[in-house]
């Protein structure tokens, strides 16, 4: 599962050069579609996977926590699965995989989003920050420190998402009261029920005024 580097330009944009590329590929798709027996053989001989690897992936250049990655990804791969399964950045959590819990919250180009509903293939040249990108060695981000001090978690599984969301909540200007924090943190479910302490932590960071 090691990410492969490639220079082949496979993303299809609607300029003339790549359109030719596209027609070539769609021709091949059609050929395969009309030949089920050969597909079966392809499957048995495993050579479909080589074609698939070429056909079914697109190149992706993406920056994660300051590190640039040149990858080939399937169009269907979500940013969450790319982070967890391909880049081994398991700090970002899968809680529901359907945008219903917030555990997978990361920052893309400075904005908090749900990585489970984000196709990695649509994040060309994006700058992604995950929980792993917050601390510098043993030096924690103020929000991480506040979560420890205020005990803003128990099992810790929703915590990376809460922290990423909490930082954004302040940066967006939505941490002006406990009530506002509660509303703007409601996209992050904590089943252990640490909400009281999460609001404490965010309030403390907001009032501390440190750069985030």
């Amino acid at each position: 599962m090691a990410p492969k580097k490639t220079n082949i330009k496979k993303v299809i944009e609607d300029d003339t050069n790549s359109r030719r590329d596209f027609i070539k590929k769609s021709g091949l798709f059609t050929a395969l579609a009309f030949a089920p027996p050969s597909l079966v053989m392809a499957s048995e001989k495993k050579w479909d996977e080589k074609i698939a690897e070429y056909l079914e992936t697109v190149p992706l250049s993406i920056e994660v926590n300051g590190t640039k990655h040149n990858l080939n990804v399937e169009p269907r791969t979500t940013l969450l699965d790319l982070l967890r399964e391909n880049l081994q950045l398991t700090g970002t959590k899968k809680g529901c995989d359907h945008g219903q819990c917030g555990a997978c919250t990361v920052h893309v180009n400075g904005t908090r989003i749900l990585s489970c509903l984000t196709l990695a293939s649509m994040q060309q040249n994006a700058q992604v920050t995950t929980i792993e990108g917050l601390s510098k060695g043993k030096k924690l981000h103020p929000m991480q420190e506040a979560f420890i001090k205020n005990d803003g978690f128990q099992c810790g599984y929703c915590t990376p998402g809460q922290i990423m969301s909490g930082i954004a909540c302040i940066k967006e200007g939505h941490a002006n009261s406990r009530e506002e924090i509660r509303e703007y943190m409601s996209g992050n479910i904590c089943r252990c029920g640490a909400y009281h302490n999460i609001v404490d932590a965010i309030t403390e960071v907001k009032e501390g005024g440190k750069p985030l």
Partner: protein
Amino acid sequence: MSKTSNINRVDGFAKVTGSATYSAEYKTAGVTYACLVGSTIAKGRIKSIDTKKAEWAPGVLAVITHLNVEKPAGYEQAKQRNNLGQPLQIFKDDSVRYYDQPIALVIADTFERMQYAASLIKAEYLKEEHTTQLEKAKDKSRNPGGDRAKDYNRGTEDAYKTAEVVLEAEYTIPTEVHNPMELANIIAKWENNKPILYTKSQGVEGTRKSVGNVFGIPPEDVEVHSEYLGGAFGMGLHTWPYEIAALIGSKKIGKPVKLVLHREQMFTNVGFRPYTIQKMGLGATKDGKLTGLSHEALAMTSNYEDFTEATVNMSRFMYDCANVSTKYRIAELDTCTPIWMRGPGEATGSFALESAIDELAHKLNMDPIEFRKRNHAEKDLEQNKPWSSKYLLDCYEAGMERIGWKDRKNKPGSVREGEWLVGYGMGTGTFGSYRNPTTVKAKFLADGNLVLQCSVNDMGPGTATMMTAIGAEITGIPTENVVIEMGRSGLPKGPTQGGSATTSSVGSAVHDACNLLVSKALGLATENPTFKNIPITDLTFANGSVSSKKEASKSVSLTTLLSANKLEELAVENESKGSEEAKKYSIYSFSVHFVKVLVNPNLGKIRIAHVVSCADIGTVINHKTSAGQMYGGAVGGIGMGLMEALEIDHRFGRPINNNFADYHVPVNADIEKQEVFFVNKKDPVSNPMGTKGLGETALVGMAPAIANAVFNATGKRVRDLPITLDKILEPIVATS
């Protein structure tokens, strides 16, 4: 307050940096991806299953069904269905026992390919008539047997019926689902024909035993890792079919298999709090003395395994009442087996008992706390034993003060804040304090660290932090020098994490092992020339050194002692268990939740404006983590009280809201103000630290507190949870 009574979580750094490793996150060379395909009927047989397309799909390594599975050796042994005896034997045959029962395992080289291949599997069924509705299975109910579920009677049966004031009411709680944020997940592999599991288990030793049973191998041959759990709340108390499936799959392909359930499957395949119908009968004198109490419960179980919990048991001892009877029945439904969910039966039972007490108090026109005080049990009438300690009255006082109980009026609907109707309510909780035999190894290392080892794990309450605090207190070693090794097999045997027994069991074992270790260090010191002719009783261990009590200048560091004796470490392994003395007492934790609600009756909107949660849990080892438990228990209770219910379309025997968008759990905005109060008085007999247990009782009593507050605000008594807005909506009468 001791130095360690408010320390931060010792695993905090790992958890806030994303470096804490949960089961499916272990970096495993050559790992493959698997998922389970579920049945689309609730009962019947698999007529045919088409796996060809999936097998041909790119990257697929195996598709396993009942048709091609190599059945684990232990499948042959017939087990009894009682007491969680026989989990579903996955892929054993063509039978379908519940909706979404796994019928196939798909393994592929990448996550995406596996997911797609799974979507290609199609099955045909021979359907049979299913029952998923408890009301329809009532006439097939039975007593599950076993001591705790026996019919209970004290005094005259049905005495309540002839009381001056009588209350009879029926209460229903729906199926609720644990839904920890971390999905059930496992990485399974085999090495030298022995299974290795990285899995979401609340009990390493329990998982070893049950996996061993399935595969016909001794538990010692099963390696289990479960260091970090992203919550579990009880769902990790059983070894589930998905874990066995991953092991079967890994064995078949000879590679590690990672299997993570979908959130949808978390509702169908890993247990839940069972749908329960309860009948209460209470009788009292006009001046508020309980004269009779009857509590009957009917709960669901699966069609292949019995599950029971202590739903009615709290009614036997909670109040001073001469005539008490309880009955507990179960009925089989075509679903997965339920499993204890936080506060388990006591949370269910307390909804009925504490609602009924509130209802009767209202009938008596009496303050519900006053009514409880008049029936305060000075001893445990069920076991006829004294309480080891009981500070429930302190909890009432503290809660009343903090919530502003004086502003409450007995007459419902008589307090307003602006447009909102204001209601105050409370509910009492209790949970037994248990202590399980536990072995802990404590080691002093030459580098000055104290290492504590135990196979117990930590699903969130802060077990490692508790162990650190106790270890540091006993040895005087700074908390940052205490190293905890836990959550995997091969370590000294710890208990399953459940029943609020971890601190009592493991904490005591840490306490005992550390004391023995200090003695051993002192013993070693007596042989050192520095302490020549000084008796061991005159030696003391502090700050990592042994010194003479009388001559403080005579001091030798542990490091020096170890090296002088050519030792790398000094270790003690010790099993610790409850005392005989403790058996003479009834040991319970007590909690009271106070709730202030604001209700808009036109919209049915209920706001949880303020919650004060008070508890008598004996000694509080760590205020920070304990408060966290209590806050969390109350939030769990808000879910139970206001929103959680697994809805079944009984036509299909299928849950209809099995996802996080439609099954609502509380979000941050659902709770406005929360406070916690602990009596923090040492229990004299429970264990060396005097703790009594917290995790379960932290939830017990919260749902009825909300129901009682809603009644106080609106005059609407809701007896079937959750209290959704439709149940309290009032029609506005048109004025024209």
